[in-house]
């Protein structure tokens, strides 16, 4: 165990921490998207689902605290690693040409920071109801919190639509490099699975983004009202 502990302090150990917390957050965004797709089943389904989550305060807060601490560890390790990486090349090249690096892999820091800002805004907006307090405590006819109404109200506003679509762009960009990269960092490698694993990451990212974008656009275009 002593060696495992010292391994976590090394650059590869920190990368593994970054990969594990990142994958944990990926699992969350997948389920978050799937849960929200219940919007298409109407107010009863979505508000019932929200009430179902709120009926289990221990689980809900356990997951929330877990997610927040995973995000905190993820950001902390990313900062440590990128500071170390910056120190590793004090003098930059005059000309530097990339040969293989994808746009997503080159913009991980920027897309990560954009995501952090977006998630902060999203929590204040739709979770805490600070930004748009009108809908925070409104009830639907069945007595549930009117999450459905809140979402529909939010995405009828073109400003919010642009902001959330930009957030989804950041999410998609981040995930398209992150998932395959995490799998590599955790040391999974197999000749036959390699191609599958490389396609796997961008595919999950794309599915999550498409699911979320469908919700935003369905409301904005008046398909769901």
């Amino acid at each position, binding site marked *: *165990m*002593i*060696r*495992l502990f*010292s*391994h*976590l302090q*090394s*650059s*590869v*150990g*920190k*990368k*593994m921490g970054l990969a594990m917390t990142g994958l944990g957050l990926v699992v969350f965004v997948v389920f978050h998207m799937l849960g929200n797709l219940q919007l298409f089943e109407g107010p009863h389904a979505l508000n019932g689902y929200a009430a179902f989550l709120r009926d289990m305060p221990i689980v809900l807060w356990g997951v929330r605290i877990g997610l927040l601490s995973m995000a905190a560890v993820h950001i902390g390790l990313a900062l440590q*690693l990128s500071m*170390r*990486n910056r*120190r*590793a*090349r*004090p*003098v*930059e*090249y*005059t*000309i*530097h*040409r*990339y*040969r*293989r*690096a*994808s746009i997503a*892999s*080159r913009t*991980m820091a920027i897309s990560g920071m954009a995501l952090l800002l977006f998630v902060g805004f999203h929590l204040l907006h739709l979770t805490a109801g600070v930004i748009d307090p009108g809908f925070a405590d409104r009830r639907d006819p069945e007595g549930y919190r009117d999450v459905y109404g809140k979402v529909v109200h939010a995405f009828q506003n073109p400003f919010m639509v642009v902001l959330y679509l930009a957030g989804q762009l950041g999410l998609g960009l981040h995930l398209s*490099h992150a998932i*395959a*990269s995490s799998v*590599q*960092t*955790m*040391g*999974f*490698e197999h*000749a036959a699975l*390699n191609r599958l694993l490389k396609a796997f990451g961008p595919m999950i990212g794309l599915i999550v983004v498409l699911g979320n974008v469908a919700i935003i656009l369905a409301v904005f275009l008046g398909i769901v009202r």
Partner: protein
Amino acid sequence: MKFTLNIWRQNGPHERGRFITYEAQDVSPGMSFLEMLDGVNQRLLCNGEEPVAFEQDCREGICGSCSLVINGIPHGPDQGITTCQLYMRRFSDGASITIEPWRAKAFPILKDLVVDRSALDRIMQAGGYISVNTGGAVDGNVILIGKDQAETAMDAASCIGCGACVAACKNASAMLYVAAKVSHLATLPQGRPERACRVSAMLEAMDREGFGSCGNQYECEAVCPKNISTRFIANLNHEYLRAGIVESGLPSEPESPHAESS
């Protein structure tokens, strides 16, 4: 052929460097990049100027000495070759070519285009020994090794330690180098007994030397003159995780290879 060269000139490790422009004239398309530089240096010597310092040795792509970043790409625009195997016919006549040294904190510039790559040697030393019985040389095929396994080990062992992976990496990380060395020995039965100690010690040494961490951009694979695959980096990560969990009871540092028992 004629070329305009922007070459990084720096007198010593602690001096300030800058680009100086030289003209390369009467270059034959069949000349290698280093022969072209020899011509430039000859002219500089004739004019009583200091020639451009660059590293070279075998000039056949196996020693790993030549180390130039040519127009922003280590070892130049072609894949799977070293700078000495790059020919001038690859460039269009009259082109402007920018030549820089490897740039990394762990590779301090000694002079002009020559960098000190002994950090890679120190990582190698940290890896330590493999268990070999003393006495007469062992007969071939005493330890049977599968063809696939032997080929994988050879793919990793073809690393010549030129440091292009470090030069190409956004983070100046030596992961591909360490991955090749670790995977080479971890794939073979002869390297198995010390595999946990080796991977831990080599990665510790890599961090100590000030290399960055892997960003999984695979730029290293694109410039590697020996086309070493980044799947060895996954293998390195796997070995490291295994060493941390499965064999965590063993000491992290191997004994010094030169320590005599008293």
